[in-house]
């Protein structure tokens, strides 16, 4: 039983490691994309009045 | 293309013969490595004998790496005039490849006996097969080094990037060279043939593939 527990811990760690990696990647890309999009939107707001003038 | 390559090769060679900018520092570096191995692994002991092929090839690769890395570095520092000139990239690659092969062969010719002397391990008896092993290993490294050198020549931090690209790339060659040398020392001698074939295949493939692909580099 003790061995089984140890094995379960390894399984748990392996799955969590994968999830953490994917989570970090996704949040990183997500945040950066949002950041960039906001910058683009900000520039668009700046440009529109100028464009009409 | 071939004429341009030969011409470029002579240009580099005469530069090198006049200044000895590449060969001398690389050779000295190789000798220093041999000495440091001696310190680190207690040279002259029998213990060193089974490790000798690995130590020799790492020494050859590291010091060749210096020479190979410099071959394109010269162009980068000369303001990349050659790279802007209307010359086929294939020709540039061929000329650098020829130069690198020549330089690394000379380096190996100096370092191999030096390693043998300093570490107190006799070279294998099968001289011709050993020479073949050396040539195949060195040519492959020069080919891979020329390809990676050409690809990194226009980058920032070129000197830092090149080892990160080149050394993992040549790992099958290192395996082939070390194991072929091991076979010459009598460890699994039946494997010698397949290791030599592996190295020959590496040499052939990575001379041809860059040659075919480098025409695309001319377009940009």
């Amino acid at each position: 039983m003790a061995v089984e527990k140890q094995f379960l811990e390894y399984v748990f760690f392996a799955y969590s490691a994968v999830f953490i990696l994917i989570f970090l990647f996704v949040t990183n890309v997500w945040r950066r994309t949002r950041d960039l999009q906001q910058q683009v939107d900000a520039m668009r707001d700046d440009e529109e009045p100028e464009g009409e003038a | 293309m071939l004429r341009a390559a030969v011409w470029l090769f002579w240009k580099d060679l005469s530069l090198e013969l006049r200044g000895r900018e590449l060969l001398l520092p690389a050779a000295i570096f190789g000798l220093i490595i041999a000495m440091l191995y001696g310190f680190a692994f207690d040279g002259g002991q029998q213990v060193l004998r089974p490790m000798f092929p690995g130590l020799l090839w790492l020494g050859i690769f590291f010091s060749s790496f210096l020479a190979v890395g410099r071959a394109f570095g010269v162009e980068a520092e000369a303001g990349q005039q050659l790279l802007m000139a209307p010359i086929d990239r294939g020709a540039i690659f061929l000329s650098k490849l020829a130069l690198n092969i020549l330089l690394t062969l000379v380096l190996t010719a100096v370092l191999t006996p030096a390693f043998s002397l300093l570490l107190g391990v006799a070279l294998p008896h099968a001289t011709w097969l050993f020479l073949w092993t050396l040539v195949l290993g060195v040519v492959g490294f020069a080919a891979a080094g020329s390809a990676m050198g050409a690809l990194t020549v226009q980058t920032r931090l070129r000197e830092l990037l090149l080892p990160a690209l080149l050394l993992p790339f040549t790992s099958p060659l290192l395996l082939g060279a070390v194991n072929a040398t091991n076979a010459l020392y009598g460890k699994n001698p039946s494997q010698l043939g397949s290791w030599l074939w592996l190295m020959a295949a590496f040499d052939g493939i990575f001379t041809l593939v860059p040659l075919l692909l480098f025409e695309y580099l001319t377009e940009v």
Partner: protein
Amino acid sequence: MRYVRWLSLPLWVVGLYLALIWVPDVRALGVSYRIFYIHLGMAWTALLAMTANFVLSLLVLMRRKGKMETDRFAQASAEVGILMTTATLASGMLWARVAWGAFWTWDPRLTTTAIMWFLYIGYLLLRQAMDDETKRRVYSAVYALIIFVDVPIVYLSVRWWRSIHPVVFTDTGMNITPQMFIAVMVFFFATLVLALDLIYLRAFQDKVRQELQERRARRLGRLGY
């Protein structure tokens, strides 16, 4: 693409259930073999991503149109491939610790994966170190083609090398039951859909970045620089 994204989540949930609960224990392998499901799915997807990178790099060089878009996807697939390879290595090392007693063995597949990891990290480093976009595109595509050719050679050499040295373990001929097969396939598709989504997301991000850059340049132009 937007709808495919939501397919990934249920697949993952089902996959987790199948792999961790539904599939019965295999006595000979112990509980730790359940790592196998996520491990294999990741490994296959990683290989597919690298292959996608190869094909896209080929297209970058051969095709005249749509180079920018293709290049974006090539980079994204390399990044996702590295992510999946890292996950494969991480889960594989934990499994190896239990099954073989060491985190790292110089098993051919393991060693090849590690070298492949370094080669593709090099791809990203090369891209990062080049400023000119056109040059970066072509140079990194050429590099991608060359290293893709190198991977099978690495595998071959490592396998020969290992066949000489004492073998640390032998491949346990794992008999795959239908149940195990289903769990593996569900996990594989879950990972594959996730990878596609991530590639798409990453390429989209790069597109936004480029748009921002162009807008900045245009604005500077208007201001008279």
